[in-house]
């Protein structure tokens, strides 16, 4: 996973606690892309993902100043805030979220110019399936396969053990496979 090291992030938070707001800006810039991706994979809407990303860091700021100390693992800490926020969002929006959200999935054609229309549709379908999973199973798949986190990192984000991550990962892939039509993963 390409990301800022916890060491640097901790230093930036300590600077923030000393009153340097710009240090929090730097902290934000380092983590924003991956937190945005994490949230996007859950909400599947650019505008919502952007709004929630900002909210995550507002909450992080409040929490940081409330506790007056930097967390031991800043990345996992921010991910946990994002995790809780997306769960809340999922709960509140579950009933009115359109099922054809996957149509908005950005296939990023400039990143993958060689993809056929068929492949793009397969990706959109996969994303839709992901949305149908229980939140915790989806979290594990997002962390492990879409964000490329290790078991340990995933465990920290989800506040579970690495062993539990392995169990959930297996279960989530099975569920995804059961939901998917046969052609999707061939």
């Amino acid at each position, binding site marked *: 996973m*390409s990301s800022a090291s916890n*060491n*640097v992030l901790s*230093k930036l938070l300590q*600077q923030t*606690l*000393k*009153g*340097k*707001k*710009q*240090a*929090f*800006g*730097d902290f*934000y*810039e380092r983590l*924003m*892309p991956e937190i*945005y*991706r994490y949230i*996007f*994979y859950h909400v599947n809407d*650019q505008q919502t*993902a*952007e709004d929630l*990303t*900002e909210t995550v*860091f*507002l909450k992080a*700021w*409040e929490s940081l*100043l409330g506790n007056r100390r930097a967390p031991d693992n800043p990345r996992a800490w921010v991910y946990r805030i994002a995790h809780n926020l997306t769960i809340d969002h999922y709960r509140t929006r579950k009933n009115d979220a359109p099922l054809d959200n996957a149509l908005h999935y*950005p*296939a*990023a*054609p*400039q*990143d*993958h110019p060689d993809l056929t229309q068929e492949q793009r549709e*397969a*990706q959109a379908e*996969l*994303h839709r399936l*992901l949305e149908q999973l229980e939140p915790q199973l989806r979290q594990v798949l997002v962390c*492990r*396969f*879409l964000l*490329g986190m290790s078991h340990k990192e995933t465990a920290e984000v989800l506040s579970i053990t690495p062993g539990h991550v*392995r*169990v959930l*990962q*297996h279960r989530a*892939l*099975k569920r*995804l*496979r059961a939901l998917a039509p046969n052609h*999707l*993963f*061939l």
Partner: protein
Amino acid sequence: MSHHLSTEQILEICLTALENGTSTLEECLARYPQAAPELEPLLRAALALQSLPTPQPSARFQRQSRSRLLAKLPEQEFVTFSGRFRHNMQDSRKASKTNFTLLLRRFNMTWIVILTLVGTLLGGGTVYASQSALPGDPLYTVKMSVEEVRLSLAGPETDVALLQEFAMERLEETETLLQQQRFDDAALALQEFQNTSMALQAALQQQAVPQEQIQQTITAMEMQMNAIAAQLQTMQQTGAEGQEAVAAQTMESLQHALEEQERSMEILHNIMAEVEDGQDMAGAGQQNGQDDQQDMEHNGQMTGTPTPEMDDEDMDDDMMTPTITPTATDGTPTPVPTATYTDDDDDDASYNDGSMGGGEEHSDDDYDDDYNYDDDMDEEHGDMEHNGGAGANGGPNN
């Protein structure tokens, strides 16, 4: 072999092998033939997930969200060195007829003195050893505490000299850290330099310091900054080994920080020019300083000299405007005048050109925050950073 392993374990082994590139899917399946029927669809699902494109926020979000977020953050009463320093300076001005606040200033720092004395008794060597510590080193906090103690014990007349020393120390630390390729720590050192530089600006405005002394400070700092700039340039040309993308990003932020410091130098130059003017005027306009100050702000021109009797709030504005580091302790948003300690329109214009790229219009919202110049500069910086890449990476824009 597969008899002893659960599907979960085999899945894990195969996923790791695929991630590391040590096995292909087919090789994995061949290795565990009995588990293969169950394993294959799971592995294919995992591979399909990995092949999903990476979503990107909109280019606009990438460019503006940082400054928008910083503007949204609720203000907080921070206890900072520079904030405290500034507060004390204001306190001193308010009660300039007595020495009471100076006494108070000493008490404010009493706890640090006590801690350091205890530390010295327990191991005087620690304080000594900390003198060569760099940002990121365990002993660096000791070094900073010692500096704070020195500053608290010094009288106002020696503040300037001490702050000059500390500012130079920060620049030297930056240079050393760059040599050691500790880029993030170097960026922190530059940030500390900015804080010290701001305190120095405040002290210079407060104290009657001979022009030669300011000139010496500026020259020394500029030489050091040129050395850092040259070092950065060499590193970019030769390419820091093994640093690659992270280094490139850090390098950019270092460059950005360095540009901020150059603006600080401009401010110091302006202060020096004012000292010169002030000496020429020999105290003329002492009574009218405050009114002049306000008029000049309204006109966008400053041709006079700020006086020590200046209103506190005005002083606040002037000290805050050019700085990169937020240290507001009163929590009240301060509208920033477009003209600060500049001698004429030219200076004002050049500051705007440098920081905003000229021609850029700002809504009132831009001035909601104490540090909107920073925000604007960030945006500008962001523009420069993202203009090239936005088109190529702005995947989900549509």
